[in-house]
């Protein structure tokens, strides 16, 4: 249970970190479209990866959310 709580916290911190990262010049340098990845402009491919990572984090969250443990115990 304690481990789950820790993993859940790590997921939350990672999600907040990704959101903050999105609004830095690391992802949205103003007026710059390079370097491209397979022809896709820089801000688009980096933010696409961030979106996918957020969904993956949500999936991990469903596995480690401490509330699931409680519900199993309730049952």
């Amino acid at each position: 249970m304690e481990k789950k709580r820790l993993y859940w916290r790590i997921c939350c911190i990672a999600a907040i970190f990704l959101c903050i990262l999105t609004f830095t010049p690391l992802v949205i340098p103003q007026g710059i479209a390079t370097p491209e990845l397979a022809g896709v402009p820089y801000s688009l491919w980096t933010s696409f990866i961030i979106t996918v990572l957020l969904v993956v984090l949500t999936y991990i969250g469903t596995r480690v959310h401490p509330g699931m443990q409680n519900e199993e115990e309730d049952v």
Partner: protein
Amino acid sequence: MIFWVWVFGLIYAGLLVFASLKSYKKNRSSEEFMMAGSNIGLTLGVLTFAAALFSTFTFLGMPDFFRINGVGAWIFLAVSDGAMVFLLLWFGYHIRNKVKGMEFRGVSGLITRCYENKLAGYVFFLSAFLFLIPYVGIQIQGIAIFMDAAFPGSFPAWGWSAGIVLIMLVYSEIGGLKAIIFSDAIQGLLLLAVIWIIGWACLNHFGGIGPMFDKIGTVQEDLLSTPGPQGLLTPQFLIASLIAILMIPVTQPQFTTRIVVMKSMKTMQLMAVSLGAFAILVILPTIFIGMYGADLYSEYGRDEFFANAFLYDQPDAVAALAIIGLIAAGLSTTNAQIFALGSELRGLLRGNESSIMRNTKIGIFVFSVIAFFFSIIVFDQLVLLARVSFAGTGIMGPMIILGILSDRKVSPAIIYLSLVGLIVFLSSLAGFIPDMYFGLRLDLLLFIILGLVAVISHLTGKKLQLISPEKDQ
């Protein structure tokens, strides 16, 4: 094209009738009518949440937003949706725990109970009413514009709007929330299929993703980076949008209801993940349509772009599918919103169950009529009006989260300040006061202030202590 519209239209109408009749039950309780028996499985849950979320705002608005503002539009919606599904996991757990063992009568009813203060429910209802109705109106208008382009001169725009409102009222009246959820499932799948068919056709126009961005670079290079040609997508605008979209499951009652009526906590959590994947799948093809518009129709207005990209440039069958897909997208979101407003009204009404149900249905009818009138008079960019709607209801976010999460007796100050925040935001929309202060957008400033007030209210709140038996003795 008319032939294909009839074919797809009849199939779609048949499915809607089937959904309504399948959900219809004589002598059903108000709980069954308003909350679908609180027993929604994963697939239906994902599709109904997605159909309520991705509306004409996504179908028409996002291609137009990409066309005008470029690739940063992905961050505006997709990154924000990715973060929203993570928040959904966290908030869904807490709200489901909060309503466990009690009858859920909308966020207004819940928040009234949390604060033991009726004003909290009324303030929330007011914000939902003020910001959902224009949003519903502009979606109905979006469909009417599109239908007018498809069948010029056959009906006036208001005639199409009236027809849409009528269909919405009839099938929600017959089947209640369950019919809406079934039809959402049909509409969610239809929306996904249609947006990909058109998106794929637009991508083929360029010959691939790389050539598409190469071409756009020669047409308008600013579209390939933020803040875009109009300078709109600044970090501040995107942060404020992220917060507004994050608050959607918390403050837009049609989504909160869907979280609560999911069969179990696990189903709700898996729904959040699937919704994230669905969001990526739905938003991706809108980039292709937007870039297509930027290449061919950059000088055109909104309506001409829609008519050309979705109708005139497509084969007849695809154009007909686009019409039906758009009706599906608009109808699913608007009826979810109107029904949710009815559900919120129900949470505030007192009296016996049959009179509450009667008044709720009258309320749903009245909201639909008001939305119909808005659809005739409102004119704005779909995406920007949707964003205002998210931000407007988002102002209530700190009050709702504090009420649901705090285990302390908190001060009612947050209720009054949320009301003040709402009035200030409305005043800025009306142009009475500026929308920037100290270099910050007003909506962002309101989120920060109300968020801080919520934290302070919690920290200074009186701890609720159960008197232990030992102390009692």
